[in-house]
């Protein structure tokens, strides 16, 4: 069975939670023997050169972005830019043709959509309308709810028809898909309530690795005697908001030789807000924003952190950073929201759940003033590895393959 995975992000060198999940799903299906092709419909960055393993439909070339629709949407575009991906392709005959060419070249039996945003383009295909190509919706959140929350949080007003269209396309996709992959049971319930026929829950997972050998290996300006809480996140509004709600208040009262370290592109958003709000005192030996770091650096940070911090205020799906934190064996301080999809782990002795800024601060200070948990003193939790969390998808894929084979088999054969 040939599977074409279409995503609105490149997945070959994934760094953000969404692209990591998409990549791990593709890898997992490949390892299971399925023929998986990848296609990205996104803005091509300078780093992303042509790679036959994942052609990119570069929506940055579309005239849509200077159209009246995009100009009108300027106030909220940044918050729901991925929703406009399909608009960008539709309004560029070249990109639309390129997309169709790539889909036909892949000759898929199944199209697996990562996020719902390309559904308006894919549903037009005659093969999809006829059922010759089956659709699998791989959700990362309940986008309808998440986008609304993000816009509310940003205080941005959006015409009702825009959010209505987001809801409409996600509802339509859920009902049209052969099956839908949900990150959490709660997301699955939402999709079922919308009329999804089949929903499978495959929560986010983590790459399981030991980091014992990295104790007392830290990047500057950290020193080996520093105790620090580590927040790893990408540039994403709920991550920036969570930092300022739960972590920033703790900075002023940090004791000497303790730090909050931020790794990942969320650093950009945090630094911008610190500059805008004249919070320069955060930087005085309290907060270290490292920006994007390579995996070996990230591993060293995790191995030496007193606690991994999950200051998540809202969001859907399950948080990949929570899975990674659980797999690291380090102490965790997080909100209830951050443990969506992982509620069974909230009672672990090394997990502290706190839902107010005051309690979060107290937990951070307590963690930074108690002896570190030995990094080697835990067993890798196999049940959080990707191979385990994604396994329900494979069962559904095999069922779909059987259905497709049955559909294609001549009537005489099936009758025996």
């Amino acid at each position, binding site marked *: 069975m040939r599977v074409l995975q279409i995503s609105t992000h490149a997945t070959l060198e994934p760094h953000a939670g969404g692209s990591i999940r998409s990549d791990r799903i593709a890898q997992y299906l490949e390892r299971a023997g399925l023929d998986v092709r990848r296609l990205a419909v996104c803005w091509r960055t300078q780093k992303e050169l042509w790679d036959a393993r994942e052609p990119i439909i570069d929506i940055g070339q579309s005239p849509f972005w200077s159209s009246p629709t995009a100009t009108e949407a300027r106030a909220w575009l940044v918050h729901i830019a991925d929703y406009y991906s399909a608009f960008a392709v539709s309004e560029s005959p070249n990109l639309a043709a390129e997309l169709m060419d790539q889909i036909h070249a892949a000759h898929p039996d199944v199209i697996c959509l990562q996020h719902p945003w390309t559904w308006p383009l894919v549903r037009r295909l005659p093969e999809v309308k006829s059922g010759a190509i089956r659709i699998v919706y791989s959700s990362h959140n309940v986008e309808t709810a998440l986008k609304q929350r993000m816009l509310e949080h940003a205080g941005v007003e959006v015409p009702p028809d825009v959010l209505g269209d987001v809801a409409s396309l996600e509802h339509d996709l859920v009902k049209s898909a052969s099956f839908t992959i949900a990150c959490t049971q709660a997301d699955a319930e939402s999709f079922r309530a919308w009329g999804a026929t089949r929903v499978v829950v495959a929560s986010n997972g983590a790459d399981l690795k030991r980091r014992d050998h990295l104790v007392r290996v830290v990047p500057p300006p950290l020193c080996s*005697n520093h105790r620090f809480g580590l927040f790893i996140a990408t540039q994403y509004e709920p991550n920036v908001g969570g930092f300022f709600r739960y972590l920033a*208040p703790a900075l*002023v*009262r940090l*004791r000497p030789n303790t730090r909050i370290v931020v790794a990942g592109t969320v650093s950009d958003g945090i630094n911008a807000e610190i500059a805008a709000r004249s919070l320069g*005192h955060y930087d*005085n*030996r309290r907060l270290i924003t490292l920006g994007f770091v390579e995996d070996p650096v990230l591993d060293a940070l995790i191995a030496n952190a007193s606690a991994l911090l999950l200051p998540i205020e809202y969001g859907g799906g399950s948080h990949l950073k929570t899975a990674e934190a659980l797999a690291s064996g380090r102490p965790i301080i997080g909100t209830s929201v951050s443990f969506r999809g992982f509620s069974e782990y909230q009672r672990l002795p090394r997990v502290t759940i706190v839902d107010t800024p005051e309690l979060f601060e107290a937990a951070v*200070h307590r963690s930074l003033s108690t002896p570190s948990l030995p990094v080697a003193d835990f067993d890798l939790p196999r049940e959080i590895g990707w191979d385990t969390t994604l396994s329900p998808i494979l069962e559904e894929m095999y069922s779909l393959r059987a259905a497709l084979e049955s559909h294609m088999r001549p009537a005489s054969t099936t009758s025996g």
Partner: protein
Amino acid sequence: VEKSPTTLLHPRLLVDLSVCTRASAESGAEDWRLEQLVSANMLADSSVVTLPVMFADDAIRVVDPARAREIVSLILHSNQPNARAEMDHATATAGSLRMALQKALRRLRPPAGHAAAADSGVSAGPLPELRALPVEVHAADGDVFWTGDGRNAGLPFRHLAEVKTSHGFVVASACHAPAPAVRQLAHSDSELEAQLIDQLDASDLIFCMDQGVSDALRWFAVASGRQPPDTRVLPAGSPTPGRSNQALVDARAAYVQRELLTLLEAKRVPP
């Protein structure tokens, strides 16, 4: 006590001149006289082992002792009534201690061999630059670090607190902020709150201008999750508005000096 090579037989007073040199008229010139006078007197006290230092390039660095003494001797001389008036005027109008000292220097420092020139208006040239030398002081147990209220002067109290935590020396500072201002800082998420917390973390002893400040500091410490600091309340007085009260500053400086000597004595290793 075992005498390791790093243990000082004679405790050393590190006199931080950061506050003296960074102080500005905006910070309240009157307030800084305490730090200036204590630093000047301690550096001039031959019975104490002292080392003038400053913060520079993220480290405690040595200051040329000769230049340091020259500066602080000016501060001492500036306490003379005629020079004081000159200094007060310059501070108020020119807006910086440096300007004040340069003016005072022109009046007070006679060129070599021309003692009488001080009153003739002959300029003695620009004030020597007080620069940190590229020599780092690794303070340790046995050292007492005297600074002042360095918050407005940009003294990196957090850095000091971190170095002190690792190396075990003693820090004495001062707080000029009025009590209500101290209380208002708690949970303000402001730079001033961060600075005061850093000063608490760095200081083993804080000299307070009155009992109210001491009480406010102790309250602020608890509100910030810290132990109440060890404080000393300076002798009281009622400065006349518009005129400096030199007697009060002298008395307070003498009090601080006695306390610093006590700290040094406590650090002395028995023979």
